[in-house]
């Protein structure tokens, strides 16, 4: 017996299937993922204008609620919100409230009292944005900007946008994700997105200590040997390796990891000649990737950053749209009743 209905869908979708929160890619179908990509495409053009603003979130307040530090993700969310004409408040919570012993619930109650319309949440614990989405007042949208090891759905979607731009689509693609899958929220969201969008094969390449239990159940194959794993690849996604992994006895040394799982030109030559190289950043040159590859012609790492703003504009505007549609439906229902 399942204890509760896995209510993730009803939590992040409105009754008619519109996005109202953006917490995870689980439960979002291909049509919705494609709609996000298409919407993002239309916002790319905004970034190319001299006046880079659209009024979709004018008068709305977006709070960037970062319980874990981040430079790139937070600044692209901030830019995305500003390009949608929202007012933006940045809060680094790890250094303020929680260190004074205030609980997350109490912090949220205080922030809600400031009449915010959207929280962009990054947290070190898996499921924190779900918890927040379940506790906030209806009408406030929650966007997951990365939670623990669980999900980083905007990162995965900007990666999908990058892949689509370079490959035209997902049918038939062979994609590998290399490195620390165990601790990676990015990898979990990418595997889910690639499966839903119809990639032919998702391969994870890593030593057993950096793979979650039963990783195949996520929708991927496993390859321990990178030289074998590179064969026929259309896309190779390198993950960042945190230095702490050596201390936890998960790996012997950076040097051995780089030798076996680092991407250099020699290994890249084993892939399809048009294979693109991706990395969610920030990159560790000489740990998981060679500079010549990171800066080379097959690297699309900087395109990923540009696409990050467009994807975040897309999900923010779509979630706010879903919340507003829900609100007007409720008001109409009340007027009729």
């Amino acid at each position, binding site marked *: *017996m399942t204890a509760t209905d896995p209510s993730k869908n009803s939590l992040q979708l409105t009754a008619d299937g519109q996005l109202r929160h953006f917490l995870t890619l689980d439960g979002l179908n291909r049509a919705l993922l494609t709609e996000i990509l298409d919407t993002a495409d239309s916002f790319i053009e905004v970034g190319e204008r001299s006046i880079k603003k659209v009024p979709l979130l004018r008068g709305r307040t977006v709070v960037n609620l970062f319980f874990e530090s981040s430079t790139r993700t937070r600044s692209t969310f901030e830019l995305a919100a500003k390009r949608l004409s929202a007012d933006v408040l940045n809060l680094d919570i790890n250094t303020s409230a929680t260190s004074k012993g205030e609980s997350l619930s109490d912090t949220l109650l205080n922030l809600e009292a400031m009449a915010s319309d959207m929280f962009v949440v990054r947290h070190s614990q898996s499921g924190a944005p779900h918890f927040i989405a379940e506790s906030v007042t209806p009408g406030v949208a929650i966007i997951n900007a990365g939670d623990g090891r669980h999900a980083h759905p905007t990162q995965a979607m900007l990666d999908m946008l990058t892949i689509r731009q370079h490959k035209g689509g997902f049918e038939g693609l062979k994609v590998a994700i290399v490195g620390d899958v165990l601790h990676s929220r990015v990898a979990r969201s990418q595997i889910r997105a690639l499966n839903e969008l119809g990639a032919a094969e998702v391969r994870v390449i890593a030593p057993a200590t950096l793979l979650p239990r039963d990783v195949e159940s996520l929708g991927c194959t496993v390859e321990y040997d990178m030289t074998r794993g590179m064969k026929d690849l259309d896309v190779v996604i390198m993950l960042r390796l945190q230095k702490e992994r050596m201390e936890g006895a998960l790996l012997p040394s950076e040097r051995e990891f780089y030798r076996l799982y680092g991407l250099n030109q020699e290994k890249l030559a084993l892939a399809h000649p048009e294979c693109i190289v991706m990395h969610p950043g920030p990159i560790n040159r000489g740990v998981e990737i060679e500079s010549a590859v990171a800066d080379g012609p097959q690297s699309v790492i900087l395109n990923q950053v540009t696409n990050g703003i467009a994807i975040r504009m897309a999900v923010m505007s779509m979630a706010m749209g879903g919340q507003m549609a829900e609100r007007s439906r409720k008001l109409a229902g009340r007027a009729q009743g």
Partner: protein
Amino acid sequence: MSSLKIVGGRLADTNAETTILVRNGRIVALGDAAGKEPADHDFDATGCLLTPGFVDLCCNLREPGNGQKGNIASESLAAAHGGFTTLCASPDTSPVNDSGAVTNLILDVAAKRSSVRVLPVGAITRGLEGDLLSDMAGLAGAGCIALGNGARPVKNARVLRRCMAYARTFGLTVMFSPENQALAADGYAHDGLVASRLGLLGIPEVAETAAIMEMLLLAEETGVRLHLGQLSCARSVEMLADARKRGIAVTADVAMHQLMFTEEALSGFDSRYHVRPPLRSEKDRQALLGGVRDGVIDAITSQHQPHDSAAKQAPLAATEPGLSTIESTLSMGLLLVERGELDMASLIRALTSGPAGVIGRTAELREGTVADLCVFDPDATWVPGDSSLSSVGRHVPLPGKTLPGVVRLTLCDGRQAWPQSDL
């Protein structure tokens, strides 16, 4: 009440209709003989099942403590509502029950305010810290029926070995929830499909099985009577059966929620189902049910862990483990019987004579014994919610669901424990 006749009920294990006559707190007649005798009050038990009062080997009463998670009065009343008459109170109180003085305090409070019998389990290490032995003989002398380390680990195998050898000296039973601390590390969910998908920190199965292997070997060597509490893995059931065959004096229990739920319960990050050991796979659940059916697992416990609401209102990893189960334990068991996963006789045995045997007691409906029984209607239903629960803990396993099994009467030690008001 001077005399009470319970008429029209059936014995839960055999399904035979019977009458029970209770006079001055004792069962004085059973069956036809009881039917003929007059009594001051008749209790109509038509449609109800009669069983000995349930015995819980693992229950947290939260007293002594700061009170916001519950106390002996509230949780023992909840237990009576759930059909329990005997509670083994876990030592994880504040202060920890690691001295005769704390044991005496618990027994004093229980004598004044408890609805049911409270049997304290003493801390086997000082402060449950896992490194120094507690005054075991003193704890037993004050009334502890067994010794254990609550939900905390014993630091290493050397300390564990000495705990067992010292307890063996006095013929005491030791109760442990097997978990290898280094392997469990910071985990809080079963290391399996759901944890992998949701990025939860896993507690691997081997954290339990490695601990069990170590404990069985040490128990065999020291000759202590070992009770393994709250098993969660299929492999543990096999290891237990093998140990029994080797003649090791080992008993075991499983929490009712482990028989009911799997790791899937966490798929919506619902902190309610953050329990320790974690809810594991369907294969594990099936093996645990098998263990109860064939008697390898002696007892089903509530593993009742009441909390204040704040303890469960946080992102999953930051919440405290435990369910408030004692009022729903019987209902969950009846759901399992309804589904054909457990037979009524095994369920009742695992709630009564099984756990009683672990602590050297009996639980039976017999002439001449003190009346300690539960009368429940298996077909009547109730809905767990604020108005129907007595426990301070509202994080029940099946909130808002219509559940089978309503306890009509609980007699503990010859006195009426549930319902609270007199008949």
